[in-house]
């Protein structure tokens, strides 16, 4: 009985999002996908032109296909995916569009990964798939303006998302233990750095400095820290505070791997953003925007500002003035760098709150 109560409490009481907070997250996520996370459409015609022999689907449903489909098929799915995300952005048939976005992304990824290598980007599917059930289209949406029925913002999809993130990190950490990462002499992180630097030509940012760094204790510490973080995430999903702390660690982890290994996992960031205090962000934005006598509604102002910011970042990225080799891209450096700043600010505020609590 107690276990059942705890289980229910974990599912239903871990997160209490507000409809307005979730709506801001919906707008943020839709713009992130539309501007930064859509598959590269220029690759579709290349894929369609590959010899059939290059079609090497991973074990699974893609084995039902024997070759890459023609380019128009990819373009059609790409347009449908974009339209689904526009639907999510505007909050038009939000649940259907969210599920459609998940489905179309899954289909495109299936073919893209049939070149013989699976990339681990399932969070691109899970975020719209799970958030479809959070009622993130309950307000600031076309759906809400077409209906008088009030729907409740649900927190359990965020718990489910946390569970999947935690489990997926565990699957990254567990084989490292078996593979010998905890052996102080292995310096596995350094081995991967050298592999990325010399074999894959990932030589941007601080990678050159890291290659020359000859401090074994630093490399051993990084091996241990990586394993503890990745395995520990699964335990952290049991409490929302721990999950948020580990999401902060994840941002730090991705930032450091981007600087040294030049591997930026931007695809995970919309999922991490689900754990931001969106209701607080909403409460913070509302008076500020009204004090500037902004006539447009809050979501329109928020969405427009975010769109312009993202568009500028994208344009700078496309101009190839900075980081022309695209590994990592200007997009990735800017957004992951901003995420790190947000984490630092939130951390400082949290420490301030804890200090104040201790005084009282």
């Amino acid at each position, binding site marked *: 009985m107690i276990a059942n109560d705890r289980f229910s409490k974990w599912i239903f009481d871990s997160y209490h999002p507000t409809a307005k907070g979730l709506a801001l997250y919906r707008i943020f996520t839709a713009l992130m996908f539309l501007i930064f996370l859509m598959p590269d459409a220029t690759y579709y015609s290349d894929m369609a032109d590959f010899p059939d022999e290059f079609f090497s689907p991973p074990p699974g449903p893609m084995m039902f296909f024997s070759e890459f489909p023609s380019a128009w098929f990819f373009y059609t799915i790409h347009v449908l995916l974009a339209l689904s995300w526009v639907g999510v952005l505007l909050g038009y048939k939000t649940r259907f569009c969210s599920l459609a976005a998940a489905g179309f992304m899954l289909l495109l990824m299936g073919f893209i990964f049939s*070149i013989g290598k699976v990339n*681990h980007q399932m969070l691109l599917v899970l975020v719209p798939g799970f958030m479809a059930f959070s009622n993130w289209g309950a307000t600031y949406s076309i759906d809400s303006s077409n209906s008088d029925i009030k729907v409740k913002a649900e927190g359990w999809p965020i718990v489910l998302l946390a569970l999947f993130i935690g489990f997926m990190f565990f699957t990254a950490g567990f*084989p490292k233990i078996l593979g010998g990462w905890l052996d102080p002499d*292995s310096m596995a992180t350094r*081995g991967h750095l050298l592999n990325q630097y010399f*074999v*894959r030509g990932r030589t941007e940012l601080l990678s050159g400095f890291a290659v020359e760094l000859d401090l074994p204790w630093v490399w051993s510490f990084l091996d241990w820290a990586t394993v503890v973080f990745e395995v520990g995430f699964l335990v952290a999903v049991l409490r929302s505070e721990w999950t948020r702390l580990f999401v902060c660690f994840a941002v730090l982890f991705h930032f450091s791997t981007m600087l040294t290994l030049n591997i930026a996992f931007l695809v995970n960031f919309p999922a991490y953003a689900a754990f931001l205090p969106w209701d607080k962000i909403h409460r913070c934005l509302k008076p500020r925007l009204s004090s500037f006598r902004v006539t447009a509604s809050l979501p329109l102002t928020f969405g427009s500002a975010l769109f312009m910011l993202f568009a500028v970042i994208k344009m700078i990225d496309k101009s190839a003035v900075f980081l022309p080799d695209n590994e990592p891209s200007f997009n990735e450096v800017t957004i992951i760098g901003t995420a790190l700043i947000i984490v630092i600010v939130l951390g400082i505020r949290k420490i301030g709150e804890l200090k104040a609590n201790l005084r009282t």
Partner: protein
Amino acid sequence: MDYLSEKIVKRIFIFFLIYLPLQYAVVGIVGYYSSEPWPAFVFPGFKSIYVYGDTYQINQFMVEVESPDGTVLREFAPQQFFYEIPNSQVTGFLRSNLDGADDFEAFDTETRNWFRERAQALVGVSPGDLYYLHRRQYMTRFDNKLNIDSVKVLNRFKIAEGNL
């Protein structure tokens, strides 16, 4: 009702709590005998270790383009030869499509033509034979710098014959 009942949500959680470890086990088994299945809810393990004391082993894969007289015209890193494939997928692509082969006869005519046309576009002249090369560099740290100690060719085989 617009949202799912608590009972159904709890069942969804119970399902995934059972499903996630099971699918991980399947990923491990299928991955061991074949390759990583998809879709799967896993992150990359990066379990391999490349460092042994002060010695580092770096595997290099190259595509070698010969001129018709048999001299090496140019060597291409996979990222250069298969430039449209995202960098994150090139190594996996080589593993799936080239590592298992040992001769150009492993590829069909369409694929061999594709290799030839790609080589011609990159070098600007009609190429001779094309080879896939796997070599290992051994590096040691000396004078606070990484230096190449030795290079060993582990495998070299023809992936397409010159213009017929």
